[in-house]
């Protein structure tokens, strides 16, 4: 551990907060229809889009109508993406957009990939530079990077509207929300961010792959592509699907320590801003600060544990006789699966940033993290991604936890629970409980199915794996159920594509199970969350009295942390014991 390492972590938390505050204010204006500084520029294209779409953007939708629009829109996106990915070598694709003549991946991999990008998961059963054409990357994957992120933010905005609604059942209009999200939030930041990334060395071209002749007489083939335009929205939309197989570890995706820092900020800026937006929209910014405090507290806890564990080094290194303490000119630590330019701190921080959110981008190999260091992403996923969480998903999932915490708090003091002036009754609590259980249910059920299957058993008991074999399987479904997308990439459901450019090869059961888990655990909670928004929107506001439990102070923050930890621990502890905990406790080699 170094001073510079701790400074990186502290500076990151500070800069993130300073950036998220104004963005939260800006987004609150965007979702309440106020004018913002971009309105003069974007007002016209916005109105043009509504006209072209024939959207009744002025009409308030109730939750069912909102959900219907959202689901049909996502289905349309799914169908188009599937079609694009399956026809990437078809006759109508110009050669310049498929310079290496890649064939399409088979149906099973494509089913998984399509579901993955439409659900903001970006789990990848393929290697980008050996499977995807430039056309698929930009026309298919980049577009869903934007749209799936936009859908998540819409749901968060709708839930907040439901909380503050004073009359009627309307929770906003989906078409207005998605258009405004893309035009006012995602696209402007992406354009600026992409240019910053290119200026630092992220590539953006349509060249064929290069062939270099090295000074020692070897040849090296180097993959190219339009990377920056996808890289920025991959982080900003907490998507996480790499242009290249090794994701943000690839020097063309993440060339310097500065881009690493910048990409981490891109990942967390919207999830953090949404919390401040919530405080502003409910008319009490302290509500936002309390939730933000909870998230930041848990986030920093994870970062500290991961940094210390990785700086300590791994049992395998020590068994090989390596010394992992810092020396002059090297910080030591577990450098297996880590890049020199990021170092231990930059890798541990990035790992936590992308697993608390649903981003799932990686700049280091999670498989190679130490037992305890690797337990941190497990813990983040087990908390169902409410520590900042994905764009939109993080806020709405956390607000459901707030609801549960208010309910539990109400039970403890024996009063009818009230939240922001609204009485919480059976329907909301039932729905919140349901929404919170969907993800763990999907994760655990799918893991059980996977490890009981023939192929899954082989994966778990593969030679030299030990508890890591189970960790890989559990993490695979935990990641897909949380729409995260990061992986213990040794999981054998992951079949590397042949270098012969014939597309990825899938394991059908893993592809289909994963795809279904992602779809179920994404759209299930979305529909239920919208139902909660609808239920809350229809409630009359009662004035705050002496007996109202406050939800904007430290006491409540502590209660909320307790509820999140308790639900996560109760659900996942037995499974976690079998994998990362055993591994972390023993220095044994398998």
């Amino acid at each position, binding site marked *: 551990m170094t001073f*510079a390492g701790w400074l990186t972590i502290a500076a990151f938390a500070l800069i993130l907060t300073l950036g998220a505050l104004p963005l939260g204010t800006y987004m609150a204006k965007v979702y309440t229809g106020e004018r913002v500084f971009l309105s003069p520029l974007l007002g016209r294209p916005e109105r043009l889009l509504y006209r072209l*779409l024939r959207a009744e953007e002025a009409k308030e939708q109730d939750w069912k109508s909102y959900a*219907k629009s959202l689901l*049909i*829109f996502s289905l*349309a996106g799914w169908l188009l993406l599937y079609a694009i990915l399956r026809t990437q070598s078809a006759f109508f694709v110009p050669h310049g957009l498929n310079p290496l003549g890649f064939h399409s991946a088979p149906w099973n991999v494509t089913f998984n990939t399509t579901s993955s990008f439409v659900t903001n998961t970006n789990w990848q059963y393929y*290697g980008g530079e050996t499977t995807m054409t430039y056309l698929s990357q930009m026309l*298919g994957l*980049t*577009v869903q990077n934007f749209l799936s992120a936009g859908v998540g933010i819409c749901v968060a905005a709708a839930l907040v509207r439901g909380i503050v609604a004073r009359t009627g059942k309307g929770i906003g209009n989906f*078409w207005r929300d*998605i258009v405004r999200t*893309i035009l006012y939030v995602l*696209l402007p930041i992406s354009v600026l961010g*992409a240019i910053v990334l*290119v*200026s630092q060395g992220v590539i953006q071209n349509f060249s064929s792959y*290069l*062939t270099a002749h*090295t*000074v*020692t*007489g*070897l040849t*090296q083939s*180097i993959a190219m592509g*339009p990377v*920056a*335009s*996808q890289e920025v929205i991959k982080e900003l939309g907490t998507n996480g699907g790499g242009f290249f197989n090794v994701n943000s570890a690839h*020097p063309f995706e993440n060339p*310097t*320590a*500065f881009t690493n*820092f910048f990409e981490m900020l891109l990942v967390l800026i919207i999830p953090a801003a949404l919390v401040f937006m919530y405080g502003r929209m409910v008319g009490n910014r302290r509500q936002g600060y309390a939730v933000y405090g909870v998230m930041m507290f848990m986030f920093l806890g994870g970062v500290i544990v991961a940094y210390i564990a990785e700086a300590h080094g791994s049992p*395998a*290194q020590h068994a090989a*006789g*390596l010394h992992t303490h810092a*020396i002059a000119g*090297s910080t030591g630590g577990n*450098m*297996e*699966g880590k890049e*020199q*330019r*990021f170092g*231990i701190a*930059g890798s541990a921080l990035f790992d936590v940033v992308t697993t608390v959110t649903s981003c799932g981008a*990686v*700049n280091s*190999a999670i*498989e*190679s993290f130490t037992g305890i*260091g690797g337990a941190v992403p497990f813990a983040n996923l087990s908390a169902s991604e409410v520590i900042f969480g994905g764009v939109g998903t993080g806020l709405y999932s956390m607000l459901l936890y707030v609801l549960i915490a208010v309910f539990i708090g109400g039970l403890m003091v024996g009063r009818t629970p009230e939240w922001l002036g609204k009485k919480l009754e059976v329907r909301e609590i039932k729905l919140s409980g349901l929404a919170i259980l969907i993800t763990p249910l999907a994760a655990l059920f799918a893991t059980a199915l996977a490890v009981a299957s023939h192929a899954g058993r082989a994966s778990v008991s593969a030679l*030299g794996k030990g508890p*890591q074999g189970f960790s890989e399987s559990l993490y695979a479904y935990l990641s897909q159920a949380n729409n995260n997308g990061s992986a213990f990439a*040794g999981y054998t459901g992951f079949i590397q594509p042949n270098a012969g450019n014939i597309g990825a090869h899938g394991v059908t059961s893993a592809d289909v199970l994963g795809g279904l888990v992602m779809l179920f655990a994404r759209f299930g909670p979305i529909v239920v969350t919208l139902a909660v928004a609808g239920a809350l929107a229809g409630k009359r506001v009662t004035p705050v009295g002496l007996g109202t439990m406050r939800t904007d102070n430290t006491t409540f923050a502590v209660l909320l942390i307790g509820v999140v930890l308790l639900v996560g621990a109760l659900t996942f502890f037995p499974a976690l014991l079998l994998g990362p905990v055993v*591994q972390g406790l023993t220095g044994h080699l*398998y």
Partner: protein
Amino acid sequence: MRRDIVTSALAIVLFTVLLGIVYPLLITGVSQVAFPGDANGQKVYVNGKLVGSKIIGQSFRRPVLEKNGKPKEEEGELVTEADPRYFQSRPSATEGGAYNAAASTFSNRGPNDKVTKEEDEANAKEYLELNKPYDASLTVAQIPVDAVNTSASNLDPEISQANAWIQAHRVAAKRGLSLGAVDALIARHTDSRGLGFTGERGVNVLELNLALDRLTGGTR
């Protein structure tokens, strides 16, 4: 329902045009005009020949030649050995030979894995064999971890300063340079931290090696 379907279909098409065509082409246009070097991968040429990218790591091993002068192959792959005149990059486990930048991959070596230990031992042994003749006091415990562990991308363009300082003994001897001169070159090609505090300092292996070639001439 019908209205939602029509609007969804139109929305997907329009967004695909905006985000999948207009936006990436706009970024490509701006980058190709404003930052052509960066946007095209920071290519490095020597005598007009492309030798690599500044930010993509590469192997400085050389093909082992058979008695008839042809490069030796085993199972379709070139057999290589470290070229002692050059600084060596970190170990790389990409498929199709080390530092294959057309198929990046993680090595996925677990922390409690015997395979990891064996790979670490093998890499440490090779590092010792290469460098100990020029730095007699070198032991396994002194080898910096980055010289033995594979990177995340397996395309890491950098090594740690400690790793470079050890290899400097060998390179200086092989090229007939003073250790001070090589260390000075290392210092010149050591990148600073991002923003002055984030990340770790590292030595760009390709740039360092090319600087050496400019000083004393290349192999060929």
